[in-house]
Structures are given as C-alpha cells and as structure tokens.
C-alpha cells in the first residue's frame, strides 16, 4: 500500500467541475476523495470526519471560499490545510485569503497535473511537519552551551550565531526566532558592557570612531583573557519553554533597581534600556550571582 493512501481530501465544488478534473488522477495516486457541493455539507464533513486537506472551488456567491475557509479555521481545526481554487487571482482576494489562514490560492489549471503536484507538495509538507513535531515532543529537553573568552568578545553577531546554532534545525516561526535573537543580543551586550567592561554612559555616547578605538583598546588589555561569557540555551518541547542563561565574569550590577521600573510608561533614560527590552519580551527574568547571571524564560505557542 502506498503511504499516500492515508491522505483524505475534501473537495468543495458546487458545479463538480474541479472534482471531475481531479477525481481520476487523485484516486489513481491513492488518495481518498469526497466532494461537497454546499458550504453547510462541507462544514459538516470536516467537523465529523478526518481530512488532511480541503480544496475549495470558490464560486461566490453560492460558495464563498474565504468565508468557508474562515469558518473551518475558527470552528473546526486551525491547522487543517485549505487551498482555494479560483478562476483568477487578484491581490485583494489573496490578502483576505492569507489573513483568513489559507495555505495556498491557485488559479484553476487546464490540466490536473499542476494541481496534483501542489496537493502532493502540500500533503508532503504537512506529513514532514507532523513527523518533526512528534520527534520534538518526544524529547524532554534539548540543551546547548557556548563559552566565549573575553578577548574574543569583540566579534560581531554573537547572539544571532548562537540562536541559529541552537535552533537552526528547528523551524520556529520567524517572530519567535527574532524575539530570542533580540533577547540574547541584549543579554550579551549587558554582560559585556555593564558586566565585564563596565563602560560608563559618557564613554558609550562618544562619537563612533572614538568609541570603536576605545573598545579596541579595552579588548586588547591582557586581563580580558581571564574574562568570559557563558551562554546556556535549553528548550523543553513538551511545555514549549525556552530558557536562556548568560553568565559573565564581571563585577555584577544593581539589577534590583531595574526590576522596580514601571514598564507601562516609556522612559527616555539611557541606562537599563536593554533590561527593559528583555523584561518586555520575555515571560520571566531573574538574576543570580549579584547580576553576573541573567536567566530568561519564554513560552512559545508553537515550536
């Protein structure tokens, strides 16, 4: 038995044209196929039977594809892939469809091969994603540690390199990756500027050439070899929790006064903006060892 035989597709097609076009090639390829000729029947079928994909032939006003898509996503299963088949795509329709959660909008082709390829691709992606999530959920925790010696801390992109190394193979949503990169960038900068180098505000706000020279000078000091920043990243797939811990060998800082700040009002002050960012973006922030270690936790809806 072909593995594709497991896939069940519901076609919503009032006239039956699309169903007839696809019936033979899909069934020859081992797919189970059903046709619903009305919106109500389609909703009933997806509510009470399992389908892997819904293909809606939008025939407004009899079958309003976007309305049906919206109802499936809201009341049946948000993750159920839905493809809209239209005579002609226009941009406002595509925008409405994307907002409602469509997986693809395609123009009705003359031959079924193009459509069959798209359906296969969609189902294959869904199968891969499902396998990836199952494998991820079977793990209790994934951890990875990084250590940077003080005289190597001048290198750029530490945060993005760490996040990409840790999460590169886990296809997280871009917004989640971006949030983690931003948090880690702030944590590393905090460890470096306030912890190890202890740069004063007036030193930070000097003109760029002077500041770069100032930094180069600080990084070249022999004692920098004795300093380091350690980063530990862990993820618990079952609870969708990511924890990042950054420790430095500096003198620590007064983190308690930062934690008392009111985040509901924007502040123009220079000091502690990075910590404000971290507090805003993470679910929890805590400090240990007199401010030399910062730990953030962030839950994500989807990993």
């Amino acid at each position, binding site marked *: 038995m072909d593995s594709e035989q497991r896939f069940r597709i519901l076609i919503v097609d009032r006239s039956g044209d699309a169903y007839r076009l696809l019936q033979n090639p899909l069934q020859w390829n081992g797919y189970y196929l059903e046709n619903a000729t009305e919106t109500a029947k389609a909703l009933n079928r997806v509510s009470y039977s399992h389908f892997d994909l819904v293909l809606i032939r939008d025939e407004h006003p009899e079958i309003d594809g976007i309305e049906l898509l919206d109802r499936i996503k809201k009341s049946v299963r948000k993750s159920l892939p839905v493809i809209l088949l239209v005579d002609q795509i226009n941009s406002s329709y595509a925008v409405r469809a994307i907002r409602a959660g469509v997986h693809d909008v395609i123009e009705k082709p003359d031959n079924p091969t193009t459509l069959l390829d798209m359906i296969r691709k969609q189902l294959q992606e869904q199968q891969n994603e499902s396998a990836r999530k199952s494998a991820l959920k079977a793990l209790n925790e994934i951890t990875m540690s990084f250590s940077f010696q003080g005289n190597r801390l001048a290198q*750029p*992109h530490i*945060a*993005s390199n760490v996040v990409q190394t840790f999460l590169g193979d886990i296809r997280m949503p*871009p*917004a989640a990756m*971006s*949030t983690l*990169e*931003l948090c880690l*960038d*702030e944590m*590393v*900068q905090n460890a470096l500027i306030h912890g190890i180098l202890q740069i004063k505000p007036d030193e930070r*706000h000097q003109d*760029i050439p002077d*500041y*770069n020279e100032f930094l180069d000078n600080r990084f070249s000091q022999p004692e920098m070899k004795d300093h380091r920043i350690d980063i530990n990243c862990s993820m618990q797939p079952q609870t969708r929790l990511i924890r990042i811990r950054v420790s430095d060998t500096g003198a620590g800082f007064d983190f308690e006064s930062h934690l008392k700040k009111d*985040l*509901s*009002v*924007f502040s*123009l002050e*220079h000091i502690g*903006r*990075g910590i*404000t*960012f971290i507090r*805003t*973006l993470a679910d929890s922030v805590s400090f240990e060892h007199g401010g030399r270690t910062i730990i953030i936790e962030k839950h994500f809806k989807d990993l």
Partner: protein
Amino acid sequence: MELVLQLEGKKAKIMVEGSITSDNAYIFKDKLSEVLDSDATLLELDLSACKNISSSGIGKLLIFYKEFMTRDGKIEIVKSSPIVYELLTTIKLDQLFSINM
C-alpha cells in the same frame, strides 16, 4: 542591514532593510546624523522591511529624537513590519511618536 536615506527639503525618509542590532546600530546613527545636518524637520521611517531593532538601535533613535525636538522636528514611523510594530508598541514608543503598520 541596508539603509537608504532620501532628503527632500524639509522631509527626510529612511528605509531600513534587515535587523538593527548592537553590531550595526552605528550605521543607523550615521544616517540620523545626516538628517540632523540637513534642513529636515520631518523624519519618516519606513521599517516595513526591518526584521527587528535592538535597544542600541532604539537608543540611537532616542538620542536623535531629543535633538530633533529642539528644532520642532517630528518623527513618524510610516510603515513597520508586524514584528517591529509589536516590539515598538510593547515598549511604549508610541507614546513619543506615531507608529503605523
């Protein structure tokens, strides 16, 4: 990160593509300095292709903001990506100037 600055009389426009991080925030500062050196009293920021902004980037913008205000300058974020919009409004930057998505 790519930055494009357009100066047209009293109006300046900066378009940002990529991420403003602690590593490249100085480039953003350089562009803002060019705006201060011009006659512009309106800065439009197009952040629709900006992936994110670190506190260093925000810091440069706020230093600019304070100086720009002394000449009755106005900042408007005319477009922003959803991620950046969420970030800027979460840190309450919309209390200082208009932020659009």
